[in-house]
């Protein structure tokens, strides 16, 4: 866990306190007939197994190989993603923004934790953390450096602060050396961070090294 997460005390008393309090609230809400435990289990299963960055990665990979799909994605990402996902992310007002050699896009929510759940799942702790929410809009290069990312000199940086119900998906640059790759092979190069803008898609070399481990 990140050292800056105030939740990670070693003494563990907060954990046991939270376990007890959450259990109590769930018991009360269930006994009063407000929630169904089976529905709660299903809600958790949805975010642990059904939605996640694998969906966004499939969308990006298709955009890399299919110019018509990419056009649809950049015009109306909600419609384009609906056609790829196994479910219908109705209502999610999704906007896809494309990285180019001229402009790198980064997504943040300075006010809370808005994140494109249907394509990336729930956000990681760092996305919801004070360091990321505070610095990204004023020092994006510093934040990118925290992720080990440095952009070529002269690259413009565009920050998208998710202050309404619109949600953003970054389409990273397709790595060099992937000509002729299948959509499935390309999707393996598309990381979660590359779709938030705090990373780049993996190169074939990086991917090969990781796969060999």
């Amino acid at each position: 866990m990140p050292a800056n997460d105030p939740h990670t005390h070693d003494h563990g008393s907060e954990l046991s306190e939270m376990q007890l309090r959450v259990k109590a609230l769930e018991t009360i809400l269930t006994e009063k007939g407000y929630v169904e435990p089976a529905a709660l289990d299903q809600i958790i299963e949805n975010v642990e197994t059904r939605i996640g960055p694998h969906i966004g990665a499939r969308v990006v990979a298709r955009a890399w190989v299919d110019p018509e799909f990419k056009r649809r994605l950049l015009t109306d990402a909600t419609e384009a993603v609906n056609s790829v996902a196994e479910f219908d992310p109705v209502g999610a007002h999704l906007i896809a923004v494309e990285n180019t050699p001229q402009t790198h896009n980064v997504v943040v929510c300075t006010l809370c934790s808005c994140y494109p759940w249907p394509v990336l799942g729930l956000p990681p702790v760092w996305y919801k953390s004070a360091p990321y929410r505070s610095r990204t809009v004023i020092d994006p290069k510093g934040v990118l450096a925290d992720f080990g990312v440095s952009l070529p000199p002269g690259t413009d940086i565009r920050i998208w602060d998710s202050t309404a119900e619109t949600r953003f998906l970054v389409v990273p640059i397709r790595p060099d050396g992937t000509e002729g790759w299948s959509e499935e092979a390309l999707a393996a190069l598309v990381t979660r961070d590359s779709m938030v803008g705090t990373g780049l898609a993996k190169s074939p070399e990086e991917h090969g090294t990781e796969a060999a481990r």
Partner: protein
Amino acid sequence: MTNSIHDMGGTHGFGPVESEPNEPVFHEDWEGRVYALQRAMGATGLWTIDGGRASLENLPPLAYLASSYYRRWFLGLERRVVAHGLVGEDELAAGRALRPGMRLNRKMTLDDAKAMSFANFDRPSPGPARFKPGDPVRTKNLHPATHTRLPRYARGKLGTIEAVRGCHVFPDTAAVGAGENPQWLYNVVFTGRELWGEEADPAIKVSIEAFEPYLVPA
């Protein structure tokens, strides 16, 4: 509250961003339960997503900063169910129901959860949009004591309309039970120098999603 601790953009001193390799969706089982309770209780329609956010923003600043993300959600949910009369303080203290529940108009069933639909905030427009792409605008210098989605760092700033997003539920009224009051929503882009001064990196642009009542022509 608007000028509260949640509005973090541009604040110094929180340190580096630390990511965790192979991070799990939930670090503890109770976090998943809180997430699910929040989703299921949200589906009752008794409060809006903006009302939910406002209840987190109203946490005392020290409690906000000292609490993990899902602890904040939990504290907000506890406040909300009590405020809406769904649960009594005595029941929270007892850890069990002491009275039958209120009748709800909506409740999330297993089938609803399987359908995994996401809420839609688009609404029919009450009139024509005031701005179009390319229009220069200035954000208002607003400091309401209630919920707003205009961040402090972007108030009173000169920007450009880049896109019109359609008409959406207006958080500022929805959060306080004053209705959906749909408003046009725009993407407004600012230069880094407009937001952060002459020393700012000229390569940076920042955009927000701004509702029409936040904007005046420039």
